[in-house]
Structure formats: structure tokens, C-alpha cells
């Protein structure tokens, strides 16, 4: 009987460890996936502001391009998020 309880406890511990590892991996995946787009969005916005300051008459065109660039860059973070929800949420 005691051996049986021990086996069940071991199986539970293994399942917990597996779930914990999956959650840690998913968290790292999301965190790392958000860093790149963060840098990219900062670069896009910074350059767009530089362009608007240099050429105010082109601000509308620059802001249009900036908005789309930000949204495309953000797609990378969303892909990381999807990996996160499929792995560990």
C-alpha cells in the first residue's frame, strides 16, 4: 500500500515539474519575444520623430508609415504571446 502511495506521489511530482517547466519556458518565450519588438518600435518611433522634426510638412506621411511600422513590429510580440498561451497559459 505504501509503495502504491509512493508511486502516485512520484507521478504527481513529475507532472507538477513538467507543468512548471512548461510555464517557465512559456514565460521566457514571451519575455524574450517582447524585447526585440520593443527595441524595434523605439527605433521606428524615434526615427519618425526625427523625420517629422526635420520635415514638418511630411508629418502626415511619416506618421502613417510609423503607425504601420509599429503595428508590423508588434506582430512579432503577438507571435511570442501566442506561443506563450499555447505552451503555458
Amino acid at each position, binding site marked *: 500500500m505504501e509503495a502504491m502511495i509512493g508511486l502516485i506521489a512520484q507521478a504527481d511530482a513529475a507532472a507538477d515539474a513538467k507543468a512548471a517547466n512548461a510555464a517557465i519556458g512559456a514565460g521566457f518565450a514571451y519575455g524574450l519575444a517582447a524585447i526585440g519588438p520593443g527595441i524595434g518600435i523605439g527605433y521606428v518611433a524615434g526615427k519618425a520623430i526625427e523625420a517629422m522634426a526635420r520635415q514638418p510638412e511630411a508629418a502626415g506621411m511619416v*506618421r502613417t508609415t510609423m503607425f504601420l511600422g509599429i503595428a508590423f513590429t*508588434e*506582430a512579432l510580440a503577438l507571435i511570442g504571446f501566442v506561443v506563450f498561451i499555447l505552451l503555458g497559459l
Partner: protein
Amino acid sequence: MTNTSASAWNTKPTGDAPEVSISLDMVRRGVVVVPVLVIICGVIWGADGAWSAAYATALVLGNFLLSAGIIAAGSRISYAALLSGVLFGYIFRLALIFFAVYIVRDAGWISLPAVGVCIIVTHLGLLIWELKYVALSLAYPGLKPTQP
């Protein structure tokens, strides 16, 4: 004595906010796309997939609107506020999407694969669709299509 020199804190972009009209345009197209996605996900994942597709699409469209709103609000203040809005808005919106999915993760009607697929497909699909029209309107005048 006041400081009258121009800086990123006291100058702001001129003109209208194109990002708001772009995001409204994408939402208009998104509303057309939602039934198609809901049907496709319903066929693949059942009723859960259909509900999840609708939820994910609403998340993406809300994300676009919020992003445009934050940028437009920042640009009415100054260049510095615009940049701050873009960067903090990115973190804020990612957190918002995370919590929006987190609170429904155990709901009976949710299908996480359907949510994930719909988030990526809707986001990229609407952007590429919009890019087609924006690219046409931003083209050098000599390249603009003319009426036949």
C-alpha cells in the same frame, strides 16, 4: 525669464492624426472579416472556436484603436509625449492583451489555439490589407493609378 527655445517637450507634430483614420479603416475591414474567421474556426474547433475567434478579433481591433488613440493623444501634446505614448503604450497594450486572455483561459467557451491563430491572422491580415491602400496613396504621384 522663460525658455522659448524649441525642444521635444514644447513642439508637436502639425496636421491631422492619420493613425486614427487608418485604424478606423482597419476596423471597418475587420468587421467584414470577423464572420469569415468565426465560420472557419467554428468548422475547425467547433462552437468554442467560433466564440474564441470572435473574442480574438475583438481584441485585435481594440488593440489597433487603442494604439491609434494613444499616439494621437500623445501627438497633441509634444514629440516627447508621442514617443512616450508609443513605448509605454506598447507595454500597456501587451499587458492588456495578456490579461484579456488570462481572465478567460479557463472559461468553458474558450479555445486557446483558435485565439492564438486568430490574433496573428487578423493582425497581419488587416495590416497587409491596409498597407495595399496606404502604399497606393503614398506613392510618388507619377506612380498613382489613374481611373481607366
